């Protein structure tokens, strides 16, 4: 177990190192930098002023020096300053994290609490009209562009209630807080709920074909006991993996949803920062996301060990 953990942590470190290189150099390939954008906002370009500013920001130095400067700072917990706001990058990133985290958490909760039961029902009722209906709904969840869904929700809510769930940083009532997060979370969660449902369904179908299910029936266990006790316990494992992976993919959906619902979370902030070529923000934020993803995968693997007695990490 200990050897496994060491190996695993080492690989995680290697992955994160790789990500730091990829994001750093990818960003440098993107044409234009913050100085170009600042001059675009000023409506002119002056080569001398531009060179001065590049020097001031340190983006005139050789790439390898810039990389070392960033990564060594990153290790020390020095994340640099945002090029745009000129505030410490950490100060820009940190307050936005809880917003996205709440949204993502709620979306995952939504995804799991809707997706898993419906997936089980769909599998148990395989071939029935209910199964077909659920599959069509889940497939449609995977087929709707999420910004479209978000906009339709907003439009419908204004048309029907004359109100819209736009982000409110300081909700006064419980209901307001709920509206702030729940609707956008549902818009993102719909897609991942659909995914969760499909995985649960196929996992359940797989498990329901297993010999031990027949054994359970032979014992005289009821259908309910067979499905929910014996089958689900086994079928849940791949679902956990997928929810874990989904947590990583959720960030993509959140970018779009945070834009539509105008939520000042990290996902939209990342896109804006890419647009502004705000390297310190993009680099550190991507690293942060990568750390979360890598640890989410790690947690999933550990959860596997908890849920599946067969798995013991001894390697």
């Amino acid at each position: 177990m200990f050897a496994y953990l060491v190996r695993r942590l080492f690989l995680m470190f290697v992955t994160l190192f790789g990500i730091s290189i990829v994001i750093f150099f990818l960003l440098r390939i993107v044409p234009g930098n913050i100085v170009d954008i600042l001059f675009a906002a000023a409506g002119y370009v002056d080569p001398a002023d531009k060179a001065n500013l590049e020097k001031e920001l340190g983006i005139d130095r050789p790439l390898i020096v810039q990389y070392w400067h960033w990564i060594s700072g990153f290790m020390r917990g020095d994340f640099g300053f945002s090029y745009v706001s000129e505030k410490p990058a950490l100060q820009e990133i940190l307050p936005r994290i809880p917003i996205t985290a709440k949204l993502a958490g709620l979306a995952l909760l939504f995804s799991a609490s809707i997706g898993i039961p419906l997936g089980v029902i769909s599998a148990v009722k395989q071939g029935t009209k209910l199964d077909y209906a659920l599959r069509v709904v889940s497939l449609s969840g995977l087929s709707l562009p999420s910004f479209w869904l978000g906009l339709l929700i907003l439009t419908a809510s204004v048309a029907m209630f004359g109100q819209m769930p736009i982000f409110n940083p300081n909700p006064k009532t419980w209901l307001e807080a709920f509206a702030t997060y729940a609707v956008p979370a549902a818009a993102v969660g719909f897609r991942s709920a659909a995914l969760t449902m499909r995985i649960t369904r196929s996992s359940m179908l797989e498990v329901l074909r297993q010999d031990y299910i027949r054994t359970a029936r032979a014992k005289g266990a009821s259908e309910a006991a067979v499905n929910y006790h014996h089958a689900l316990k086994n079928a849940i494992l791949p679902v956990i993996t997928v929810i874990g992976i989904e947590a990583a993919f959720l960030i993509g959906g959140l970018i779009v949803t945070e834009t539509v619902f105008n939520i000042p979370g990290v996902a939209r902030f990342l896109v804006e920062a890419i647009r502004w070529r705000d390297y310190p923000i993009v680099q550190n934020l991507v690293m942060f996301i990568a750390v979360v993803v890598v640890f989410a995968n790690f947690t999933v693997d550990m959860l596997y060990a908890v849920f599946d007695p067969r798995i013991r990490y001894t390697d």
Partner: protein
Amino acid sequence: MRSVWALAAMAALSVLTASTATLAGEPKQGGILRMYHRDSPANASILEGATYSINIPFMGVFNNLLIYDQHIAQNSPDTLRPDLAESWSWSSDNKKLTFKLRQGVKWHDGKPFTSADVKCSFDLLMGKSQQKLRQNPRKAWYSEVNEVTTNGEFEVTFDLKRPQPSLLAMLASGYTPVYPCHVSPADMRTNPIGTGPFKFVEFKANESIKLTRNPNYWKKGLPHLDGIEYTIITNRSTAILAFVAGKFDMTFPTHITIPLLKDIKSQAPNATCVVEPTNVSTNIIVNSTSAPFDNIDIRRAMALALDRKAFVDILFEGQGDIGGTMLPPPQGLWGMPKDRLETIPGYGRDINANREEARKLMQKAGYGPDKRLAVKVSTRNIAEYRDPAVILIDQLKTIYIDGELDVVETANWFPKVARKDYMLGLNLTGNAVDDPDQSFYENYACGSERNYTNYCNKEIEKLFDVQSQETDIGKRRPLVWDIDKKLQEDVARPIIFHARAGTCWHPHVKGVTIMSNSSYNGFRYEDVWLDK
């Protein structure tokens, strides 16, 4: 027909201005004006920016030396009002402009305002001070100013190389706030200090901008509002839905396109919406340094092929203006009269005849139905740029030109233009003040930083100087018209149209006037109030 309509519009406008002033009743104190902001400005320093994304939210933090009357829609020399300067006077040779400054004004941090601050601000703008602006887009405005001198704590004098009556117009723009001497330009970007009615509270990029009432504002009893809060919403439909749903008292000024106005009017029938020219022209920058547009015939053919009315019909449902460099009348002070305009090639009413002529020019240059000219039309990846480019490409088809749209990201646009790495570019030019000096020198003078095409015509430049020194508006206007006409005939930067845009607010918002010949100067908002 058109002039009658224009007259009617004028009349309606003056009624509107009058109504906001007289029918509004006694202003109520308090309340926070909630607006959305269309994008996240780079920073809070007006002097370093060249977009009203910075002006609009931060103009209320500052005062100018003088300012355009905030309740007269059309900025003109007659609507200049004292601000930090109580009065001004020209020397007899019109080369010295002296301002008497208001006393007892304090910066938001409590330090007193003096003439040193004025000098600092303009030294900064002229690039003469120790500290530098990171960007200085309007340096050219002060090219005729030798220096700014202080005479005691409350008097400053602008010493000019030659008479320049337009200097006052530029000083009155929202782009020309007075900065404090004791705050560095860097701090002004993140935490601006002014003397204005509102104090800066915070600016969270991509999130919000907050201003609060300055209780020690030197105008007693102002501002009425407790504060102004902008929520930054880049998605237009989300923003408009939120306005309709009552989350905001007012839209971002001049953010509502004509097609969207109908939507707002149907959703929020009580909202007041005002449509005015923005004094932003949509134009074509032509790379005349290399083939094929180094050929004047092809440039002329392109200018002839433009069906300006079609642009205006499609993009503004007819509510846009066709003119030269200067904003057309009646809102524009300096635009050519219609009959004069129509004598310029390409502005004539008979589009088919124009295009027939254009095709002849193209054939002369060696192109025809079987040998079409392939052209890249570069533009920024913003709807206001992209949409006219699409129409332009479609129209160029009629004269054997096959255009391909080349969409460029903001970060790459100016470098690309500076590299001359384009054939045709679709560009927007915002005019901070409706003034020929601002427009001509900034966009057409040899060596000007915003003269993207590097158009350089020494003879025309002489004419710039002649009109610039003319103090009599009546005499100056025909000079301006002549220059404008020449610029169009040279196909220096063909102007396609002048945009109009709408601003909406809910009925409880009082005291807002949208300027009709500028979108940079009317956002002080010190006497805006909420009737709630």
